[in-house]
């Protein structure tokens, strides 16, 4: 092993002039080819944390996969990847195997599926230790337990299978495995993307403290500038395969030189500026459109052994008025999506009442339920799945009109379709009418889905995480559209979201949900500035701010508590 006495001026990881191309197959290096990473340079010193930020498809994951030599066979690579000054990719894939995990390790995005499902966590960690001869056979178990302790897991995790761990625990175990051979460099690909904010905060703190303890160089790949601002010293912003700007995080925040960096910072949700960014707020009291009273819903597939008395939604009460946007905020599994589905009549409810415009909707005959569907519409999370790929835009938007017998003939229906498309900002509508989903971007797809909902002129719009699958720069457009719809048409909107800052920026009122119950309810202002529940406070504390200055205080606060 090369000692680090060479001084701290040798970067732990240096990527220089890296280019990656993808061909259509492993042999056709000519022909159609995409240039995924273009002349990329990146240096990371020991103990330094660098964020690699960008939106989907910008080449950030390709960059770190090529640093590990894990690219598919369709790729060709040029440039250098230096570990402690030694080029590791010049020998091709076969030359890299000995460096992997030993000197450079990786934490994957999908911790859910990154573990071998049929082996225990302990087996997989010990395998990493044994394969690189880090410890002897006898010490391997005690070393594995030690590693688990480092990441805050109990020794009994050793004997558990991956499916027996929660998402956060799996990611901790993954980190334990990654640091098993004491690598110099750790690459983390969206390590917290699939996790709830509170868990995300814990994982980020863990990564931060580990880099300090072990003098580890960390490259954190993420789409979320907040995450980078919270945990990194430096950041590199990627766009179209290139690093467009690089520098200390404070500098990027205060004084971004590239247009794109500024745009990215502006679109990243920020609690501090959320209230300022708010547009209007309908302060006058209007008619109540949706009333939910003592709503309870059982778990859909309850296991015989789970407590049968435990409810997915447990006695929830709230109202949505005309022209009002109410946000239902909570972590995954808190029952917020089930609540929405119960309101739509798509799951059976256990107890309670749901009224739309004063009319009870729970005990409805099928014909009346169909009528109800007209006055209440739901927007789904995933714009890529929301549209039938075989339907043209006009067919998708026309379908609800046909089902409900609105519009009489084709021509008048077409008029309604065009109005709806223009309403959601797909102008000119004629350019979109005949397109198929694969000819639309994610944001456009979500707009088509919204158009197909509002074409029925519903009174209540339910939105289940409407922007969480979109790139950050596209989110505000869709959220602004929702804002506009409720003020222009006096719609009542109930938006489910996991993101407190989005809720504060756009909602009039916020309901914080936890374990099937409403933990706290209040105006955005009240929730942000004077939260009563400790859970709300925890959520607020965990939201990563893109402002690096607010980080110090936050980390310290967490350390104290």
């Amino acid at each position, binding site marked *: 092993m090369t000692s680090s006495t060479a001084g701290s001026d040798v970067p732990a990881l240096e990527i220089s002039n890296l280019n990656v191309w993808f061909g259509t197959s492993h042999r056709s*290096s000519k022909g159609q080819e995409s240039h995924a990473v273009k002349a990329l340079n990146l240096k990371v010193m020991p103990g330094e944390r660098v964020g690699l930020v960008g939106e989907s498809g910008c080449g950030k994951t390709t960059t770190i996969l090529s640093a590990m030599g894990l690219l598919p066979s369709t790729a*060709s*690579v040029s440039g250098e990847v230096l570990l402690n000054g030694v080029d590791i990719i010049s020998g*091709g894939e076969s030359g890299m195997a000995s460096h992997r995990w030993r000197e450079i390790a990786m934490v994957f995005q999908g911790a859910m599926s990154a573990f071998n499902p049929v082996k225990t966590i302990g087996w997989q960690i010990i395998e990493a230790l044994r394969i690189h001869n880090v410890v002897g056979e006898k010490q391997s178990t005690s070393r594995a337990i030690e590693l688990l302790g480092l990441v805050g897991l109990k020794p009994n995790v050793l004997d558990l299978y991956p499916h027996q761990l929660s998402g956060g625990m799996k990611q901790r175990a993954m980190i334990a495995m990654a640091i098993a051979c004491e690598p110099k460099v750790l690459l983390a690909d969206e390590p917290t993307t699939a996790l709830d904010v509170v868990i995300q905060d814990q994982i980020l703190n863990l990564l931060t403290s580990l880099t300090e303890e072990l003098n580890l160089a960390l490259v954190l790949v993420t789409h979320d500038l907040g995450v980078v601002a919270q945990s990194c010293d430096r950041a590199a912003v990627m766009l179209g395969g290139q690093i467009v700007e690089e520098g200390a995080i404070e500098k990027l925040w205060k004084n971004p030189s590239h247009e794109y960096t500024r745009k990215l910072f502006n679109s990243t949700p920020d609690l501090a500026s959320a209230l300022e960014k708010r547009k209007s707020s309908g302060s006058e009291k209007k008619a109540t459109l949706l009333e939910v009273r003592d709503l309870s819903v059982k778990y859909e597939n309850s296991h015989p052994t789970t407590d049968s008395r435990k409810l997915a939604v447990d006695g929830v009460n709230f109202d949505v008025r005309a022209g009002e946007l109410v946000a239902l905020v909570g972590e995954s599994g808190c029952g917020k999506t089930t609540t929405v589905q119960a309101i739509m009549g798509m799951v059976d409810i256990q107890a309670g009442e749901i009224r739309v415009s004063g009319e009870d909707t729970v005990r409805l005959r099928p014909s009346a339920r169909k009528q109800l569907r007209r006055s209440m*519409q739901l927007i789904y999370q995933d714009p*890529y799945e929301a549209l039938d*790929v*075989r339907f043209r835009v006009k067919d998708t938007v026309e379908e609800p009109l046909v089902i409900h017998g609105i519009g009489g003939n084709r021509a008048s229906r077409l008029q309604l379709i065009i109005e709806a498309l223009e309403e959601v900002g797909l102008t000119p509508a004629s350019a979109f009418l005949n397109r198929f989903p694969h000819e639309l971007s994610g944001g456009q797809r979500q707009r088509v889905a919204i158009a197909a*909902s509002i074409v029925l002129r519903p009174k209540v719009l339910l939105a289940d995480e409407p922007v969480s699958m979109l790139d950050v720069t596209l989110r505000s457009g869709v959220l602004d559209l929702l804002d506009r719809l409720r003020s222009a048409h006096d719609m009542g909107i109930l938006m489910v979201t996991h993101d407190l800052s989005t809720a504060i920026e756009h909602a009039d009122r916020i309901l914080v949900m936890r374990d099937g119950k409403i933990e706290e309810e209040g105006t955005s202002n009240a929730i942000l500035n004077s939260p009563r529940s400790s859970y709300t406070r925890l959520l607020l504390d965990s939201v990563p701010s893109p402002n690096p200055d607010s980080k110090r205080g936050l980390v310290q606060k967490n350390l104290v508590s």
Partner: protein
Amino acid sequence: MTEGQIRQSKVDPSSRGGWWTVLNVLRQPTAAIGFGILAFFTVISLLSPWIKPYSTHLASCAVFEPPSASHWFGCDDGGIDVLSLTLEGGLISMYVGFTAATITILIGATIGIVSGYFGGWIDTVLMRITDYFLVVPQLVLMIVVAAVWGPSLEHVILVIGLLLWTYTARIVRAQVKSLRERVFIRRAISIGSGHLRIIWRHILPQIGPLLVASTVLAITVAVFNETALAFLGLSDPTAITWGTIMEHAFQRAAVSTGSWWAIVPAGLAVAILIMGCYMLGRSIEDALNPRLRVSYLSPYSWQLRTLVGRGKGAL
């Protein structure tokens, strides 16, 4: 569902739907060859009454006469031209195969769709029944049923059709079950579409390509079982099929006299037809399976490209 607000979309954003995939599949050599074989056999069989060179009832040469210029495939124990037999047998064998496969798909698709779409106790009951038919050895059941009902071509078709739907039912059910959870189906429900409309407008077109693949694969099993039943003497003894040709040859000592030409044409015809159907059906099924698109352990590695400051990669 339990964890993660931001999950990756299961759908390839550039997807244009299954039929597009099916059309694209025909560009692969395997699928194209399979399609060619199927088309060739269909055409030849339909034309067989006109193109067979000799009668299949009257002797046209000596007993077990070897292949020659006038009798390409030789003659069987009755002096009947084997080429003519094979051509005529193809028509009936393929008729049996196609009809039985159609019955199979109709039953399998109905059970699969109902089971996957409605779920709940309907699903449980239907799937237990399916499990039963999967576990019971089918050829044995066919033998017993055919033996009790008596040998006839219609019985063979019915028995094969009624016993082979399990594979289709299971694969269709799995597909419909996952479609049922897809957002565009849920959206259709929340718009107020009825079940029939959703099944007809959204689900059937989605599983259509899969049904095509299943049908083609079902033909292989149906033809295979027809020859097996015929070989065991359970088909109509007067009908000429590839199965009865082989059975006849076996009973009349074609093996012990070394008269391979009485067996090989029919046997190879079955093998080539099954191969063609399998290649086509499997290619479509594989193309529709998103799990086969990624491989993290390729026999090839990525390549290093050296740059000397020139060329299109150099910057």
